[in-house]
């Protein structure tokens, strides 16, 4: 009988057979396109056809000042967006974790931006940012901060900031929810012990909560960096990368080259850069996960 049970639980061929459909699907739709993109990046592929051109796409790309600007801009954009998401998310999670009235309602109310299709949320933001009739310009004019209509998406700097704010709006709820889940996992007796020892609220936060949720904070900052890096719809709908390229990030540039101008080769070279950066992020993230898992299993 034991023999029989053993066979029930260790049928490797069965395991593979069940995974095969999903695996083949992923290979066809994700893995093959990745490899094909790498190949295309060495060609001048367009709608007309393709020829092998070696490293030309890469040479052109890296020697162009514009491209280097785009890379820098991407990281600056990411840095501000991710930091804001983390800071606001942390504050939000603390507030939602506190013993306040109606917190269960608030916990639900923070989530809509996360669930709603980003593209539709951005249509709302387009209206908010409207220079003549939008509410933000309106409040600015009423309070005298602005002395006339101001199109937030029409000027380089304000468009850059506006897209960051919209991105933070989309990304913060998820960060908050994860932080909150982590805070709720902190053992109660730690707080009770600290309370008996007369620790202040701040002490309890900085000496118990923060160290306890550090692993989650680190994972979330990496994940959030990856998502922010990939963010496409927000910028595309608000500005399409303009005005004058001031909100063009790597992803937007890749898309524009490849599917705006149908220069598949050039687009592919950019996509390869995106891939390499993403792989670095993903590697960091997975290594970190493995380390945290190890720690947990050791304890």
């Amino acid at each position, binding site marked *: 009988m034991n023999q029989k*049970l053993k066979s*029930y*639980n260790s*049928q*490797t061929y*069965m*395991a*593979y057979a*069940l*995974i095969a*459909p*999903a695996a083949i699907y*992923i290979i066809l*739709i994700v893995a093959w*396109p*990745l490899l094909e*993109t790498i190949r*295309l990046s060495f060609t001048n*592929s367009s709608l007309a056809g393709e020829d092998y051109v070696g490293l030309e796409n890469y040479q052109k790309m890296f020697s162009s000042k514009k491209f280097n600007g785009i890379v820098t801009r991407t990281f600056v954009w990411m840095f501000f967006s991710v930091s804001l998401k983390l800071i*606001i998310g942390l504050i939000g999670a603390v507030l939602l974790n506190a013993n306040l009235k109606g917190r269960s309602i*608030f916990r*639900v*109310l*923070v*989530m*809509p931006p996360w669930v*709603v*299709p*980003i*593209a*539709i949320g951005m*249509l*709302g933001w*387009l*209206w*908010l940012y409207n220079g003549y*009739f939008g*509410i933000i*310009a*309106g409040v600015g*004019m009423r309070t005298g901060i602005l002395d006339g*209509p101001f199109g937030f998406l029409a000027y380089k700097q304000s468009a850059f900031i506006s897209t960051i704010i919209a991105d933070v*709006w989309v990304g*913060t709820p998820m960060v908050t*929810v*994860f932080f909150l*889940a982590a805070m709720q996992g902190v053992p109660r007796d730690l707080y009770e012990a600290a309370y008996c020892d007369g620790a202040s609220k701040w002490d309890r936060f900085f000496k118990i909560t923060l160290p306890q949720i550090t692993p989650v904070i680190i994972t979330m900052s990496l994940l959030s960096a*990856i998502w922010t890096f*990939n963010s*496409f719809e927000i910028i595309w*709908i608000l500005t399409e990368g303009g005005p004058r390229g001031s909100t063009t990030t790597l992803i937007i540039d*890749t898309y524009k080259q*490849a*599917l705006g101008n149908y220069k*598949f080769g050039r687009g592919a070279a950019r*996509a390869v850069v995106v*891939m390499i950066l993403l*792989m670095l992020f993903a590697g960091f993230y997975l290594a970190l*996960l493995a380390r*945290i898992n190890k720690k947990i299993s050791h304890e």
Partner: protein
Amino acid sequence: MTFILLPFVEMFYASLRPLDHLFRSPYQFYSDDLSFWAYREMWNTVPMLPRYIFNSFFLASVTSLITLLFVIPAAYSYARFKFPFKNSSLYILLAINMFSGAVLLIPLYKVLRTFGLLNTYQAMIVPGVAFLIPTSIWLLKSYFEKIPIDLEEAAFVDGASRIQILRHIIAPLSTPGLVVVGIYAFIGSYAQQFLFAITFNQKKEYMPIPSGLYEFIGYTTVKWNEMMAASLVGIAPVLIIFLFLQKYIVAGLTSGAVKN
């Protein structure tokens, strides 16, 4: 809180106001004749709106059903069997999650073009499924793991076949998990429609709500009140589903990430 809700409140408020109140500068904070007029009028301004709504639902339903078909056996296998490359392939799935569709668009576009599949429903469904598979496998795996293996073993020893075990033990016990994963896939595919839709589809008949509405923004005078009304109609279904089931979805999503 204000930051998070303001856009929704303002979208709703704008949708209730007549157009000439909206087009006043500086911004007017109140209108005295609020009405649902825009919700009636938008069907005329955006004549294809019912079609867009249908497309959105159709695409999201088909995408999530196909995802489930691929995911159920795979997730079961990960939950029950030990086999070489199990952990590494699970991590690869996580890594796939980090690649945005934008990186893969070029070859997919070329293939779809060669096979004449641009501007069809399939063009939007096929890549959509690929990006939902990884997370869905992780989610469903954790549900399958909760079903005690003793139950299956007992049935097996009593002479039940694998198919019988699947039908009489696993299927009924995993229904709640399947529902949650199905809804996750539905919301996910509803949300990710935009990128694939603007890239692989130019035909109005097949556009989902987001790209259909996005087209209208390009016009010189946008009827903002109707636009906002239509957007809210597009948002409503997912929001309602989510509000009812948020407890399960959030618990499922966070448990994976926090514990790992």
